[in-house]
């Protein structure tokens, strides 16, 4: 499942960019760190013999979704709202404690339970887009169609939510 050195380099980049996202004060930097994180995970997918998923990851996640995020951040001018500084101390401590507990439980499980175990399958699985598409349309046709409906519903929802009412001026006045 890949070269250990390559894995470690990629893992350091992935965790570093994730921490960068967590700690950046500017939301734009957070979004850009997240793009780096997504691209690193796409490289992991390539290493893991999943080229199609890697390309989907880059086009959908690092492309479409993150552009949407950046667009909304710049639209709202929300770069500096609610930074790390706005967090109270006990909240920070609780979050750190919960995170530490989660990692600790995992480490204990890995050490005491001897890891996931099992040997890696030696057979090379054909994971070309053709094979993946065949699997998708043979075994998973119904969920696939359902995602089509889901995307349609999401689109209608976004249009309804994003619509500005004709009486928008009135609504703004009542707010003040």
């Amino acid at each position, binding site marked *: *499942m890949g*070269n*250990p050195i390559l*894995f470690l380099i990629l*893992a350091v980049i*992935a*965790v570093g960019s*994730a*921490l960068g*996202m*967590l700690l950046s004060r500017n*939301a734009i930097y957070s*979004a850009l760190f*997240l793009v780096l*994180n997504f691209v690193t*995970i796409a490289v992991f*997918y390539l290493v*893991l013999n*999943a080229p199609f*998923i890697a390309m*989907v990851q880059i086009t959908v*996640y690092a492309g479409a*979704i993150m552009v*949407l*995020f950046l667009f*909304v951040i710049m*639209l709202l001018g*929300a770069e500096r*709202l*609610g*930074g*790390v500084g*706005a*967090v109270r101390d006990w*909240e920070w401590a609780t*979050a*750190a404690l919960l*995170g530490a507990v*989660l*990692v600790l439980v*995992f480490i204990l499980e*890995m050490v005491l339970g001897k890891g*996931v175990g*099992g040997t*890696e*399958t030696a057979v090379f*699985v054909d*994971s070309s887009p053709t094979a*993946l598409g065949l*699997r*998708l349309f043979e075994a998973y046709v119904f969920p696939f169609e359902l*995602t089509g409906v*889901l*995307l349609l519903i*999401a689109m209608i929802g*976004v249009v309804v*939510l*994003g619509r500005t009412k004709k009486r928008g001026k009135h*609504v703004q006045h009542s*707010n003040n």
Partner: protein
Amino acid sequence: MFSTVTIDWYVALSVLLFTIGAMGVLMRRNAIIIFMSVEMMLNSANLAFVAFARHLGDLDGQVLTFFVITVAAAEVAVGLALIVTIFRTKHSISIDELNVLKG
């Protein structure tokens, strides 16, 4: 022990990324950042799925990742539309100020 990369390494990385995402949800007050943290948690789960697909020699993990990415795309579109709507009415996206339902 460290000569080959096993499934455990990928699960460990996945757990680390998931934890960082969860801490982002707990620590930040900006709704957009919280949303990005949720995306990162989804991604860490995807990484585990693909790693297990490779480990077990089965394509199903990749198919599931495909579905997760699709649903995440729909979720992001709706979520960001909600955030924009909230910002229009409250002029803030700090989750501390979204307390209208508080009794």
